[in-house]
């Protein structure tokens, strides 16, 4: 190999070591996706082979030298029906199979651990329920259903983890969700795949999948002291939401405990599930769905709270379902996988040391 120049050689080595043909399978959905993908590859290869075989064999058999007089043929309904129905059947299988996967990817299980992700030009910000936040990276444990609730502060972005085969658009003004369960520890690519302006290609990061133990350790080292809900509570007070939502009998606004997940009846008679998206809307566009029995007096907080702030508020209101008194004294590192994302008091650190994060 001495005749190959060293520079070229280096290149070759680098390429070969960096060369990949298929992304790693690191989530539970990945094998399911791959099964469908390879099924489609197979069908396509067969279809393509048939087409190529037809063309080449006819070209050889009926080239002018071998077959100088063409035979005029009208067509054949039988044949045409065959190649209408068989592809149609195959396509329909792909449709159904694909739709099953689609619904699986976008329907999070009820006990999933929820992480909020805010996209903005040109970074990803992840907010863990324990208050840890990270930029352009996401630490998650294996063996645990993780739900991402995504939103964008400006334009469309898209949160893509090829190794997990999942991807979801972060849309301005609306929560979207996706979920996955990582299976193999390691570091994987995170890409923003929706074109979002100048530094679109720098809006990348790492998905760090840890074993549950490592994850616990990571939580402990990166805690900011206050959980998301605690930050929310702070905001709730400082924005004087308590003026109306104070659970007193004469309160002007509804009691927010146990609102999350309940079915509300709106003033126009429709019923509405109070999910994250609803809570967000209730804060930013309160008059769009006024709850029955209340006057539309709640002011809008649009422009006063950032998306991060809204997330904290939403998380706080969600936590009101559990005993939020306990929340207040929670240590943020204890939001562990085993506990289904719920806190247990261990009392290591008093509440209130974290900064209000807006």
């Amino acid at each position: 190999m001495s005749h190959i120049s060293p520079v070229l050689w280096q290149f070759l080595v680098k390429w070969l070591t960096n060369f990949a043909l298929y992304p790693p399978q690191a989530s539970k959905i990945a094998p399911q996706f791959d099964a469908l993908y390879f099924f489609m590859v197979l069908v396509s290869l067969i279809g393509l082979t048939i087409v190529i075989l037809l063309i080449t064999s006819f070209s050889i058999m009926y080239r002018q030298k071998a077959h100088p007089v063409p035979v005029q043929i009208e067509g054949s309904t039988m044949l045409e029906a065959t190649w209408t129905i068989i592809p149609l059947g195959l396509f329909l299988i792909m449709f159904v199979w694909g739709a099953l996967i689609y619904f699986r990817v976008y329907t999070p299980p009820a006990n999933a651990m929820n992480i909020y992700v805010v996209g903005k030009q040109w970074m990803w910000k992840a907010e863990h329920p324990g208050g840890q936040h990270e930029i352009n990276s996401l630490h998650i444990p294996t063996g645990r259903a993780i739900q991402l609730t995504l939103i964008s502060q400006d334009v469309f972005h898209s949160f893509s983890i090829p190794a997990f085969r999942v991807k979801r658009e972060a849309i301005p003004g609306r929560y979207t969700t996706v979920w996955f369960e990582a299976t193999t520890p390691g570091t994987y690519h995170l890409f923003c795949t929706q074109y979002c302006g100048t530094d679109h290609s720098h809006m990348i990061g790492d998905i760090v999948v840890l074993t549950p133990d490592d994850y616990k350790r990571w939580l402990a080292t990166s805690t900011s002291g206050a959980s998301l809900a605690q930050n929310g509570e702070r905001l709730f007070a400082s924005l004087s939401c308590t003026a109306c939502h104070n659970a007193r009998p004469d309160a002007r606004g509804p009691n927010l405990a146990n609102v999350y997940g309940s079915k509300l009846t709106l003033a126009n008679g429709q019923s509405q599930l109070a999910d994250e998206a609803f809570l967000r809307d209730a804060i930013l566009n309160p008059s769009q769905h006024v709850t029955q029995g209340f006057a539309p007096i709640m002011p809008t907080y649009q422009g006063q709270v950032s998306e991060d702030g809204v997330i904290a508020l939403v998380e706080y209101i969600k936590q009101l379902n559990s005993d939020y008194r306990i929340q207040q004294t929670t240590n943020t590192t204890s939001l562990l996988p085993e506990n289904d994302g719920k806190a247990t008091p261990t009392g290591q650190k008093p509440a209130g040391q974290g900064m209000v994060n807006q």
Partner: protein
Amino acid sequence: MQHDKDFESIEEHEHHHHVVPPRIYITILLALLVGTAATVGASYIDLGPLNPVIALAIAATKMILVVLFFMHVKYSTKLTKLTVGAGLFTFLILVGMTLSDYWTRAWGRW
């Protein structure tokens, strides 16, 4: 006029060309004006969700009158009728399929 000698031949070609008598135009005009009055009147009565339905139904009727008579579609070839139909159809596809997305976004969130 200089084209007098061509007169016959024009008449020949114009055979298929139906000339709508003014009587019909006047009738349609009156119908349209009545329709306008009706739709304004209906808007002052509170019929709940029926209000827009009625308003659009009247508008559709008026449109059909204009298309059929003022625009001569009633007397036109199948092709013209098909063209009008195609336009309406694609319009409805655009509106209908887009709205169906918006409408079903709330499904499961009641």
